[in-house]
C-alpha cells in the first residue's frame, strides 16, 4: 500500500525556481510516468520525492503522512538511477544485499531475498561478478534488483533505459511492465521518451518548465490534449499544427479556414469560439488520408517508408508543412502533387492562449 500526494511542491536553486508548484495524486499500485522536455525538472521532482533534494515549499505526503523532513532511507522508497550507480567494488550479490546488510537483516534471509530477486531478473549466473564485467542491460537489471530486494513502497526510476540500445530498451520496457504486474508496487518513472510514457504508464504527467501541463491516461492525453504543448509533445510523428481562422460556428461543429483557403469542419462544442477568431488547428498525421476530392492540396517533399507505415512530409502553399501517416506501403513519390481529406475526429482546435477547445465527443477509450 502506498499513495502519494504532492501539494504545491516547489523547488528553487538559489533565486532560480525550477519546480513551480506541483499538485499531484498518485494511487496505490499506479505506474506513473513523468514526461517532458530536457530541463523541465523531471529529475528534480523525482529526487525531491526520493529525499535526495530538499523541498523548498509545499507538502509531500506518503500514505497521508507528511515526509518533507524524513531522510531518504526512512521513506521506504527505492530508486534506480540513469547511470545505474552500482557499487563498483562489490559483486552483484553484494550490490543487491547492501541495503539489507545496512538494515542488519540476517545473512540467510539476505541470501534468500537476493536469490529471489536474481531469479525474477534472470541474474542468477552473474551474482558473483562485479558491475564492470556486465553488459549495460545486465547492469540495469542489477540496479532494479537492488531496488526489489528492499520491497519498497514506491519504486522511482530516472530514465533507466536511456543508456541502452533501441532493441534492449524495447525488451526492458516489457520486463518492467511484467515486474510492475508481479510486484504490485507503485512506480514513478521519469523519461523524456514519449513512447516509453505511452506504453508503460497508467497515468502520464506532462511537465514543462517546472509546471504540470496535463495529467491523464496515455489515450486521454493522445486524444484529448489539454493544450498545444501536450498536443505537440505526445504522439509520434508529431501532431500537425497550423494557423487557421474560424469562419462558421454552429451547435454541431465549427468550420475553420486555412490561410490557403481550404475549409475544415471540426467537432467542437458550440459557443466556445466566434467567427473571425484566430485559432490553431491540430490534425494527427493518421487523421489525414490521400483523397483526390479532399480540401487540402500539397506537394510531397519527403517520403519515409517504414514498411508497415508510410510517412509523407508535405509542403502546403501558404501554410505550415504537414506530415501524413498512411497504413501499409504506399506508392506516392517525392514531388507528387496530392490532395488530402481530413478525419474530423482527429482534429483539435486551440485558442490564442494555446488551450484546447472542448470537443463534442470523448474518445471511447479515453473516458
Amino acid at each position, binding site marked *: 500500500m502506498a499513495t502519494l500526494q504532492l501539494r504545491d511542491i516547489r523547488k528553487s536553486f538559489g533565486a532560480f525556481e525550477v519546480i513551480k508548484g506541483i499538485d499531484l495524486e498518485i494511487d496505490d499500485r499506479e505506474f506513473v510516468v513523468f514526461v517532458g522536455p530536457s530541463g523541465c525538472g523531471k529529475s528534480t521532482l523525482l529526487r525531491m520525492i526520493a529525499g535526495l533534494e530538499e523541498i523548498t515549499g509545499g507538502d509531500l505526503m506518503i500514505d497521508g503522512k507528511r515526509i518533507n523532513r524524513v531522510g531518504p532511507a526512512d521513506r521506504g522508497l527505492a*530508486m534506480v538511477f540513469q547511470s545505474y550507480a552500482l*557499487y*563498483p567494488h562489490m559483486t552483484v550479490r553484494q550490490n543487491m544485499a547492501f*541495503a539489507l546488510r*545496512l*538494515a542488519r537483516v540476517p545473512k540467510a534471509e539476505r541470501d534468500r531475498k537476493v536469490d529471489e530477486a536474481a531469479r525474477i531478473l534472470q541474474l542468477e549466473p552473474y551474482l558473483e561478478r562485479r558491475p564492470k564485467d556486465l553488459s549495460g542491460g545486465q547492469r540495469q537489471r542489477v540496479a532494479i534488483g*537492488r531496488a526489489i530486494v*528492499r520491497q519498497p513502497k514506491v519504486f522511482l526510476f530516472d530514465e533507466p533505459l536511456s543508456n541502452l540500445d533501441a532493441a534492449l530498451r524495447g525488451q526492458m520496457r516489457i520486463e518492467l511492465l511484467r515486474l510492475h504486474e508481479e510486484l504490485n508496487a507503485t512506480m514513478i518513472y521519469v523519461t523524456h521518451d514519449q513512447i516509453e510514457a505511452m506504453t508503460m504508464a497508467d497515468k502520464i504527467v506532462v511537465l514543462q518548465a517546472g509546471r504540470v501541463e496535463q495529467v491523464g491516461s496515455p489515450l486521454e492525453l493522445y486524444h484529448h490534449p489539454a493544450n498545444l504543448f501536450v498536443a505537440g509533445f505526445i504522439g509520434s510523428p508529431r501532431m500537425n499544427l497550423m494557423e487557421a481562422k474560424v469562419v462558421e460556428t454552429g451547435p454541431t461543429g465549427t468550420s475553420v479556414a486555412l490561410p490557403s483557403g481550404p475549409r475544415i469542419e471540426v467537432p467542437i462544442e458550440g459557443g466556445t469560439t466566434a467567427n473571425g477568431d484566430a485559432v490553431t488547428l491540430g490534425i494527427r498525421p493518421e487523421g489525414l488520408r490521400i483523397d483526390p476530392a479532399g480540401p487540402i492540396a500539397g506537394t510531397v517533399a519527403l517520403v519515409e517508408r517504414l514498411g508497415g507505415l508510410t510517412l509523407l512530409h508535405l509542403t502546403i502553399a501558404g501554410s505550415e508543412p504537414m506530415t501524413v501517416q498512411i497504413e501499409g506501403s504506399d506508392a506516392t513519390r517525392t514531388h507528387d502533387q496530392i490532395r488530402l481529406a481530413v478525419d474530423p475526429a482527429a482534429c483539435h482546435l486551440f485558442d490564442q492562449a494555446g488551450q484546447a477547445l472542448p470537443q463534442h465527443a470523448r474518445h471511447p477509450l479515453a473516458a
Partner: protein
Amino acid sequence: MRATPLQRLLSFIFGWGAALLLFFPIAWMVLTSFKSERDATSPGLFFAPSLDSYRDVFARADYLSFALNSVVISVGGTVLALLFAIPAAYAMAFHPTHRTRGTLLWMLSTKMLPPVGVLVPIYLLFRTAGLLDSRSGLVMIYALMNLPIVVWMLFTFYKEVPNEILEAGRMDGAKTAGEVWFLLLPLTLPGVASTGLLSLILCWNEAFWSLNLTSAGAAPLTAFIASFSSPEGLFFAKLSAASTMAVAPILVFGWFSQRQLVQGLTFGAVK
C-alpha cells in the same frame, strides 16, 4: 601510437637523466658513509670500505629510540591528519557550498607562510601547554602541517566518485558514516593510501619543527642527523652514516609501496 626511435632515445635520455640527478646525492651519501673520515672529503670512488662510521654513530647515540620516535610521530601525525581530512574532504566534495573553493584555497595558502614566521607563537603555546619535547605535541604539529595537502589530495580523489553512487547508498539506508566507510573509502582506497604514504614521507623528513620543539625525549631521526653536524666540526662520514640510517627505513618503505604511490598519484582513483 608507437614512439619513433628518436622519441624513445629522447625519453631514455631525459628519464634516466632526471632519475640519476635525483638519485646522485643519496648514492653519494651512502658511498661516503662507508669511507673513513679521512677519505670522506675527497671525491675518490676508490677507497677501502669500512663500517667504522656506523660503529661510531651507534656508540654515540641511541639510534633505535630516535627511530621509534620517528615512527610514532609520523604515523600518529598521518593518522590524525586523515581523521580530520576524510570528513572535511567528503563535505567539500559532495556537499559543496559557494564558499568551498575559497576554503580550499585558504587552506593551501597557509602552506605559503614560512613556518619560521609562526615559530615563536607556537613555541610559546607549546611551552605553556607543556607539549615541548613531547611526541603528542609533534603529532599535532605534523597533522596540522600536512592537513591542507591531505585535504586537497583526498578532495581531488573524492571528486572522481560519481555522486549518484553515494546517493544510491543513501537510498539504501546508509547514513553519512556508512557512505564514507562502505562506499567512499573502498572506492578511493588507492588515493587514500597514496595520500597517507605521502604524508608519512613528509612527516618522516620534517626537520624544522622537530629540531625546534624537541630536545631529547621526543626527538625523531631528523634530530639524530642534525646532532652529527655539530660544533666539534664536520665529520662527513659519520654524518653520512647517520643520514643513511635515517632515510633507510623510509626508502625501503617507499620501495615497497611505490606501486601504490604511482597508481594513486597518476591514475584516477576509481577507474
